[in-house]
């Protein structure tokens, strides 16, 4: 009796969980499904569950030279921004985790506060500085710089805890063996925190790949990234939903791949700061 009740309660739990999973999934699945439907099926006002999928919208997207260029831009910007963020971020996080130096408190506090800045606040001044002071508006490097700066506070914050967890005896041993601090960092410490670095890199890539509002004001026709391109194609009057959903799916793919290969790390990153760590 008791066991039966327990089992019944158990299946209710799983029905509940499945329902939640379905709610999370449904809009994403619908996007993918829509991208595989022909025009008449998309604009039909009844639900169609069974249909012959078509890749015509993807073919159209990849046949569009402007669109493939924006895809390439997005990839280049996200990869370079991630590399730069990781290089600068790892060194900074290590210094904050392991050294006491003049200005450490200020830098650490400022880094934390920078995370809170809404991107909209930066749009006007960054546009102005990039255009008039640095002369890098409309360039991909300008975007890489903006994303690196935007990502650094967050990445430093996550990485710091990974560096803090490495045993200090390692540095001591390396020092006694005659290694200088730079050798110790590159050859002893970095290899140990590689998993943490992978998690941080996923975050940096995701933010650079997904970012829209700065890209909107800092790029032109040739340096546009894919989120900007898609926003322009839905401001038209007759939205080509099939193609838009195909491009939306393409944008969603890289982050989704990361989600499935590293969900545990990602949860740790998302919750850094809420749970002590």
């Amino acid at each position, binding site marked *: 009796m008791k066991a039966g009740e327990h089992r019944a309660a158990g299946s209710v*739990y799983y029905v509940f*969980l499945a329902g*939640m*999973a379905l709610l*999370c*999934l449904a*809009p*994403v699945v*619908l*996007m993918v499904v829509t991208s595989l439907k022909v025009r008449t099926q998309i604009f039909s*006002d009844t*639900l169609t569950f069974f249909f012959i999928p078509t890749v015509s919208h993807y073919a159209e997207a990849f046949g569009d030279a402007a669109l493939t260029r924006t895809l390439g831009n997005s990839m280049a910007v996200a990869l370079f921004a991630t590399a730069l963020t990781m*290089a*600068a*971020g790892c*060194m900074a996080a*290590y*210094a904050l985790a392991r*050294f006491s*130096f003049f200005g*450490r408190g200020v830098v650490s506090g400022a880094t934390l*506060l*920078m995370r809170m800045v*809404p*991107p*909209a*606040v*930066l*749009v*006007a*001044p960054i*546009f*102005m*500085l990039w255009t*008039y002071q640095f002369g890098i508006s409309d360039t991909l490097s300008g975007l890489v*710089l903006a994303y690196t*700066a*935007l990502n*650094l506070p967050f990445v*430093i914050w996550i990485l710091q805890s990974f560096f803090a967890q490495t045993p200090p005896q390692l540095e001591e041993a390396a020092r006694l063996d005659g290694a200088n*601090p*730079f050798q110790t*960092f590159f050859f002893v410490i970095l290899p140990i925190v590689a998993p943490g670095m992978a998690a941080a890199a996923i975050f940096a890539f995701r933010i650079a790949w*997904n970012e*829209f509002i700065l890209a909107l004001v800092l790029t032109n026709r040739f340096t546009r990234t894919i*989120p900007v391109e*898609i926003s322009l194609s839905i401001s038209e009057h007759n939205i080509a*939903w099939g193609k838009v*959903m195909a491009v*939306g799916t393409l*944008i*969603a793919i890289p*982050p989704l791949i990361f989600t*499935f290969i590293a*969900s545990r790390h990602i*949860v740790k990153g*998302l*919750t850094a*700061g*809420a749970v002590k760590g």
Partner: protein
Amino acid sequence: MRAGYATRLSRIAPYVFMAPAVLIMAGALLWPLAHSVWLSFHEWKLGTPQDAAVFTGLENYRILLGDPDTLTSLRVTLVFAFTVVTLEVALGVGLAILLERPIRGMNALRSIFIMPMMIAPIVVGLLWRYMYNEQFGPLAQLLLLFGVEESPPWLSSPDWALASVIIADVWQWTPFIFILALAALQSVPTSVVEAARMDGAQARQTVFYVKLPLILPVVIVAALLRLIDAFKVLEVIFIMTEGGPGLSTEILSMRIYKTAFEFQQLGRASALSNLLLLLVAAISVGLVLFNKLRERANESG
């Protein structure tokens, strides 16, 4: 000689390690923020040379604070932020309590739950704009199955639009609170729960008087983090409604963008930016203070 070199090297090491990150953040975050303060005291129109900026003192702030649209936008922002956080915390914590037990297949489920947070905000906006389409959107089709012929004006009516964008945000972020609350619940020591049961506490009493108080600090910090993020929302609303219809979903971030790039008033946009920044800073200070209190409480007990 060699030893002197080594000490000197380790003395400069932290500065060398810090330099690239500090330079980048100073140049591309701090400088823009400082520039925004400078800009907010000037009138400068988009497209004119930079030296055409005219110093106008506090004029931008005076105009903004006297403009009923700013106040509307501020109200929309506050309603949006506090409503989404309240709903997400209530739903997330509630579900975590309901489902708290070792769950088989949690790894796969976790991937599914974090999906909405991982995809681009712009894609989230797109998804929901499609969901809400009144002619052929999935929600309209679903309602049709139940005999509702006329779809609610999800995004086209000023009375509905704010609720509709709130639903999209709740969809995206409730799993965040859920995952956090579940992890916190599962880390409550079994001995504490056992002790409560020995003292004759019912299951419900254990939840409300033992478990909830124990996970409260985590929930509060998560809620504050979400609140800060809710003030950062822009792209989802940009794609779904562009702040409309009317001003019904015009959050401050949206208004900053429009002031700068549609009305071309960069000085005024900067002033508005600084007001938003003050708002977020106030919440951040609250978060830092709360964490300090928590640390102190942990140390003393």
